[in-house]
């Protein structure tokens, strides 16, 4: 089996996910095609080596429905000979797409484009429906609660206070602001342009660098009402966690990931592909893994996913220089650091989704490119990227610079 290498990676800046967001005027397929074309342009690849476009996307309805990956191929500069595959592993879709591409390379393919998109200002989160939330066999049988309740459940179960979560959020904003200030993302962020070539957005739009503890303290927790009032999800959660008398509702808009638009693309290929194309790989994919976990607490998947990926690579937590753990909610990276005994100075060193926002289908690929940039900037070698996933799943990828 051959090894899979990352040759390049780009991402769009993230626009606020509402009607006032800069990317609200851009279609999902347009933004996807812009990222694909940018990557193509930069690496000058003979596009006939590209054997697939694997595209993460969560809410696959309307303009994001109907196999958006193939639509992206058709709108981009890629030839018709490239097929397209839309994948949905919820929040980890973008990373799952990279992993699937890597698997394709390991199975003999030459190169593939992977990544993802989510235009959350245009296609509402949840608008594709979900049996797990409404089919009584699942909703009652599996004790379904929304993710925010799950995040609060993690905080309660593992002892993270509102203070802990807010402090984490302030630090995420601080790191994000510093990263932009020092132009650490310059290599990866591709400005989004309109059909006439005019620039629409060149920077992450969601950040609030002036965030402080006092400001966050004023925010009301987001899930108290649905938890303790109607319909009372806390009671549902205690069906699975009966030792808890109550759930501490610690998460709010300021310590949870923001709703944004964005896309990212990664070029994955075999060692031979580099030779044929005259490209030097930026990193090797050491291993990747995905797992299923208990669905009510839902967001604890990163730990077992990371452990499986580490085990496949024959590595230990100590062998990883940098961690990217998606900041869906503050309790998720806090739990990751607690469970795997990882210091915060090795994790999300340039901020995360609390500051930047979380364009569901794209985030996995974005985290990968962020990790790669930072390895190169700091001269380090290995990074582990992982995301928690709706329904109780986790995905992880380990990369190593070459």
């Amino acid at each position, binding site marked *: 089996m051959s090894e899979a290498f990352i040759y390049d990676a780009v991402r769009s800046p993230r626009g606020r996910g509402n009607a006032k967001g800069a990317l609200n005027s851009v279609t999902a397929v347009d933004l996807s095609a812009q990222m694909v074309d940018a990557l193509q342009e930069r690496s000058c690849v003979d596009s006939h080596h590209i054997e697939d476009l694997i595209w993460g996307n969560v809410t696959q309805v309307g303009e994001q429905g109907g196999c958006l990956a193939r639509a992206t191929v058709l709108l981009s500069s890629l030839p018709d000979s490239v097929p397209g595959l839309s994948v949905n592993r919820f929040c980890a879709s973008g990373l799952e797409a990279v992993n699937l591409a890597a698997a394709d390379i390991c199975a003999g393919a030459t190169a593939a484009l992977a990544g993802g998109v989510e235009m959350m200002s245009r296609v509402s989160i949840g608008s594709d429906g979900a049996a797990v939330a409404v089919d009584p066999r699942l909703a009652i049988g599996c004790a379904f609660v929304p993710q925010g309740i799950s995040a609060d459940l993690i905080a309660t179960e593992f002892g993270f206070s509102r203070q802990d979560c807010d402090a984490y959020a302030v630090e995420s904003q601080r790191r994000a602001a510093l990263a932009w200030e020092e132009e650490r993302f310059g290599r990866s962020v591709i400005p989004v342009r309109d059909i006439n070539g005019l620039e629409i957005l060149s920077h992450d739009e969601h950040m609030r660098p002036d965030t402080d503890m006092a400001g966050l303290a004023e925010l009301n927790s987001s899930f108290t009402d649905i938890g303790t009032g109607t319909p009372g999800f806390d009671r549902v959660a205690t*069906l699975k966690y009966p030792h*808890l008398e109550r759930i501490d509702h610690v998460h709010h808009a300021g310590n949870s990931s923001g709703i944004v638009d964005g896309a990212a693309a990664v070029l994955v290929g075999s060692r031979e592909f580099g030779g044929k194309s005259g490209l030097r790989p930026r990193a090797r994919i050491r291993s990747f893994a995905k797992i299923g976990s208990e669905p009510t607490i839902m967001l604890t998947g990163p730990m077992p996913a990371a452990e499986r990926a580490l085990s496949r690579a024959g590595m230990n937590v100590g062998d990883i220089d940098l961690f990217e753990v998606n900041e869906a909610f503050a309790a998720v990276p806090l739990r990751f650091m607690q469970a795997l005994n990882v210091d915060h100075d090795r994790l999300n060193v340039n901020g995360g989704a609390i500051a930047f926002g979380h364009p569901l289908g794209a985030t996995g690929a974005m985290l990968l490119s962020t990790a790669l940039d930072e390895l190169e900037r700091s001269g380090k070698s290995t990074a582990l990227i992982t995301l928690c996933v709706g329904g109780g799943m986790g995905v992880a990828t380990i990369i190593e610079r070459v």
Partner: protein
Amino acid sequence: MADFHYDRDADGVAVISWDVPGRRMNIMSWDCLLELSEHFDRAIADERVKGIVLTSSKADFAGGMDLDVLANMRARGGGDAARRVFDGVMEFHRIFRKIELAGRDPKTGAGGKPVVAALPGTGVGIGYEIPISCHRIIAADNPKAVIGLPEIKVGLFPGAGGTTRLVRRLGVPNAAPLLLKGSTPGPDKALALGTIDEVVPAGDLMERAREWVLSAGPEDITKPWDRKGFRIPGGGAYDRKGYMNFVGASAMLSGETSGVYPAANALMSAIYEGVQVPFDTALTIEARWFSKVLLNPSSTNMIRTLFLDRKQLEKGARRSPEVPRRDMRKIGVVGAGMMGSGIALSAARAGLDVILLDRDIDTASRGRESAAAILRKDAARGKLTADKQAGILERIVAADTFESLNGTELVIEAVFEDPAVKRDVIHKIGQSVGPDCVIATNTSTLPVTGLAEAVRDAERFLGMHFFSPVHRMMLVEIIRGKRSGDAAVALALDFTSRIRKTPILVNDARFFYTNRCIIPYLNEGIRMVGEGVAPALIENSARHAGMPVGPLQLIDETSIDLALSIAKATRAALGDAYQDDDVDAVLATLAKAGRYGRKAKAGFYTYDKGGRRLGLWSGLNESWPGQSPPPQLVRDRLLYVQALEAVRAFEAGVLTDLREGDVGAVLGWGFAPWSGGPFSWLDIVTAERAVTECGTLEDRFGPRFKVPETLLRMAAAGTGFRDQ
């Protein structure tokens, strides 16, 4: 046979009138269904018939399905139960769909005859599922009538099209609460809710029905769901609005029931899956879920306990037929506290005159006033007219002399739970009432045979254990003392049925039946606190097992000092055999901290100044720290400890009838109603598994989990208590 009359008048109106012979209330049996089908075939085929009126020759339309038939359906199904049950249910759908189309071609819309349901009175269960299949429902303004679908209350859900049709008629947000609560409003309320179409003066019912069928046009006889482009009001499962309704509905149901009621879950699934497909497919889905419920032992047990057994007990199943029924007019209640006034109110509501006696007239009047307060609450909620309220209260007379008890047929003593006080009062009652008057002591713990010594003629003395709050609790535990006579027992049973409560009859022994079983439940909870099990795990596990209230909350309600005084008395009686020292140690610690329960605004829980429960006391975790057993183990301990005690009560002859064992447990202390009661629950578990699991529990936790002989025998023989 001939459950219906059929008649066609000169105008071409066919009247199909339901009139099951020998019954006060029409009830649907299998033969009855087939006969109804034939009458509709005839009316639809007869060209002279212009329209059809379905009504009843009785005061009411119908009381529902013959639940005996449903209860037996599974057993009769034999090896291929699922197939037979499903086919049977589909036959209902086929016939009701025929009524609904009434000869109209569903494709072209041609043909068809108007069908109206004219309800003179109550129409519940299938007695509403047939009307909702008709084109219009007209009800008489009968104040006694109730109309709707109460199936969920006995462990079923409407499975003859009621679920599918009500959801399409009202939309999910309006229909689901009615179905989940089993609401059966009166005609006016039903009209306001939209479950019926018209309410008319009783005398005009048939005329109005005829008028309607003769004037109805093609639009009137086409159901909304049979029209092109029909959309379910309020949205489907994946509409923007409907979606959130479904998310909320499942969450609320899980939260409120812990998901232990198969019928409620099946109802939700039938609704959810049904709204996504055309009407006829929805009926098939409803039939699948209804069959699943009928095949589920939980539902079978709930029907048996909550309906069949309970009805039999209320009808005097345990009453000696030798004793003639006495006409009861007036009773006395001595002790006008919470229990006494509650008993007085229940009796007055049933039309009895009540002498409410206490040591002075002020105290007695305060008891009468607390009954009045309950009536006012009911009146405010529209359950009672001002007239009725006044009438009921008029029947309660406050008194302070024992002479005023003269002329009563029954006197219930409900004074403080102290043997000396009780003896004194009982003695005085015995001296003041006539020779035929039955004297009962309302006690939850004191041996009745001992108290009987206070009356000269112990034959007329017995115990009646009422539950608190009396106006809401449905059970009365009648305790036959060693010398209680059949006549007294019969009168107590009759009285209980008269006040619309359910009697069980048990023999006199420590804690009788109900407290005998509930005390171990409370003790097991307290014991686990002492072991360091997280208190939340104890309370949540109890509720998740289907208990209405956790053991620690229940102890707080009844108070720690009461628990300690019961423990003290039990220890004195049992001597060396006493096994609950570990329980008492926990109680003593709470008592020492002044935490006597809710009344002290401090117990296992903390309370605010108004007595509102805030949360578990953090001191519990500090005094008895950390253990986290698997939740299943906690649930097992809490249920087995009750069920094994029920079996022992049966072996000891305290309980002599298993129907009473199940009904008494569910109505008396809320033993996991989904299971049908402790004996039914053991049958679901199976004796074999219970023996194995209790063996393990005995090894780990002590002899209170020792398996009783009866259960061992059943395990060996592969039999059960209720399932033979």
